């Protein structure tokens, strides 16, 4: 078999609900949703070389789309989820167009600044509970069917979304567009002198990444059954950055591993001590020091972190 690792991983994920504990089913739903979020960031970060510190804006936009539409009685996932993706994409278009005029540290700061604007906007949305956020009565329905309310059913839907995002992104990074994005990351000046105008490609990558983050946001709102400004907070952007770097930038499996490792560690540590962050910080530093290319480089047969792209 050519790609045993993804098959093994997705197979193992299918086993989680079989243990019959709702706690684990929901925890792993959250992990997979964050994995989608992390993959979307990695498209920009690892493949496109764009270090965004404002990716939570699009995650939150997806979540708030679910909340706002539910206030208007729209509950069909077939409408709400595409709408969440669309809202995130529309938001990404101006933010990306302005942010991509800069690069390096300025890009980090300006994406953060835009995300803070979106955060304060959500904060002031009284109809959605302002700073407290709002509860959702039920999960979205599919053609009138309310089955997603069951945690096991919902788990499988999320699993399917993660698989679709994983396969879609694998296609994308292996396409002509994907190679152009990677070329811009490695040597933007050379891409220019080959005749490529980098801006349009970078903006497209930005918007695609934001759209996928919007989907993750819609999924998290349905999982948690609430939306709140905390989904948009800058710590959320930092959290997902850590997942990508921890798991392995520039790969698609890496962000999944990173999401899993980070959320599981947080879960375990927080059950032992309320000062879990003090333990987590140094352990992250150790991982980054000993596995520069992330957890994925520790797996067998994975010497090259970019293996997915070639």
């Amino acid at each position: 078999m050519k790609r045993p690792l993804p098959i093994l991983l997705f197979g193992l994920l299918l086993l989680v609900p079989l243990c019959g504990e709702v706690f684990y089913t929901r925890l792993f739903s959250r992990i997979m949703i964050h994995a989608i979020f992390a993959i979307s960031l990695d498209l920009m970060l690892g493949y496109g070389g764009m270090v965004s510190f404002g990716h939570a804006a699009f995650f939150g936009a997806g979540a708030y789309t679910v909340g706002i539409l539910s206030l208007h009685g729209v509950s069909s996932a077939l409408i709400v989820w595409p709408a969440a993706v669309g809202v995130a994409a529309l938001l990404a278009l101006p933010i990306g167009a302005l942010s991509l005029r800069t690069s390096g540290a300025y890009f980090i700061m300006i994406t953060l600044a835009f995300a803070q604007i979106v955060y304060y906007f959500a904060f002031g949305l009284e109809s959605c509970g302002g700073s407290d956020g709002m509860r959702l009565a039920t999960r979205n329905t599919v053609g009138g069917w309310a089955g997603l309310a069951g945690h096991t059913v919902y788990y499988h839907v999320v699993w399917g979304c993660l698989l679709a995002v994983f396969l879609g992104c694998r296609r994308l990074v292996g396409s002509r567009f994907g190679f152009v994005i990677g070329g811009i990351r490695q040597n933007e000046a050379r891409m220019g002198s080959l005749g490529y105008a980098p801006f349009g490609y970078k903006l497209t990558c930005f918007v695609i990444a934001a759209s996928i983050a919007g989907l993750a946001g819609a999924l998290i709102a349905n999982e948690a059954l609430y939306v709140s400004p905390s989904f948009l907070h800058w710590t959320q952007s930092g959290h997902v950055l850590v997942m990508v770097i921890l798991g392995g930038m520039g790969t698609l499996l890496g962000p999944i591993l990173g999401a899993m490792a980070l959320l599981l560690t947080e879960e375990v540590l927080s059950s032992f001590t309320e000062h879990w962050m003090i333990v987590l910080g140094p352990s992250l530093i150790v991982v980054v020091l000993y596995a520069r290319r992330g957890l994925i480089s520790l797996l067998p047969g994975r010497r090259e972190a970019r293996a997915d792209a070639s």
Partner: protein
Amino acid sequence: MLLEARGLVKHFGAMTATSSVSLAVKSGEVHAVIGPNGAGKTTLLAQLSGELTPDEGAVFFEGRAITSLSVPRRAALGIGRVYQLTSIFPDYTVIENMLLAHYSTSGHSFRFLRGFGADAGARTHSLEVLDQVGLVERASVAARALSHGEQRQLELAMMLALRPKLLLLDEPTAGMGIEETERVVGLLSRLKGEVAMLLVEHDMDAVFELADRVTVLVYGRVIAEGGVDAIRRDPDVRRAYLGDEESGE
């Protein structure tokens, strides 16, 4: 006239790096620009390729003013650039570098689904060009793993894949061993006639072998311009530039 630069001036603060430089390159011609380090050769090429905008003067390509066009636009018109410092895509393999060059000439790249390497025609063409520069055997090696000379050859091959009308070459043999230098000079002389070149080069043997015309630049100023033989004999050039070369031999 393929390329024409008229009265280019470029200042860096108080320093004048290009001082009313004019030069012209005909189709198929090899035009060498020589001059000591810091003479402003790279700065001149950058104004022709679009990386720098001249403070004064104009650049024409095939009769059309291109002074305000961006680098990608000029590249699309047929101006290829080989940088003084090798500029390739280190994480990609040799063939992937070539494909990236090849695709830049065939429409936009907003193609999201089809595999990058799936186009057999593009692969064949890329391999042919690699064969020309002597790199086919290295096609599936990561570009970062190539020797310095091989990386220069790859960069040259990428430029050839663009089928440019004019190549701007900034010291293509710099840092190469004797054998690699010979290979590159041989390749350029085979290309001569097919593609026009503006060649910045320190190796005088290479210049006199390849060039039809020579412009001599000193402190940003053209001190002589003419055919190869005339330049060889020019007393100013001998004193300012060639003199120390000859006595060094």
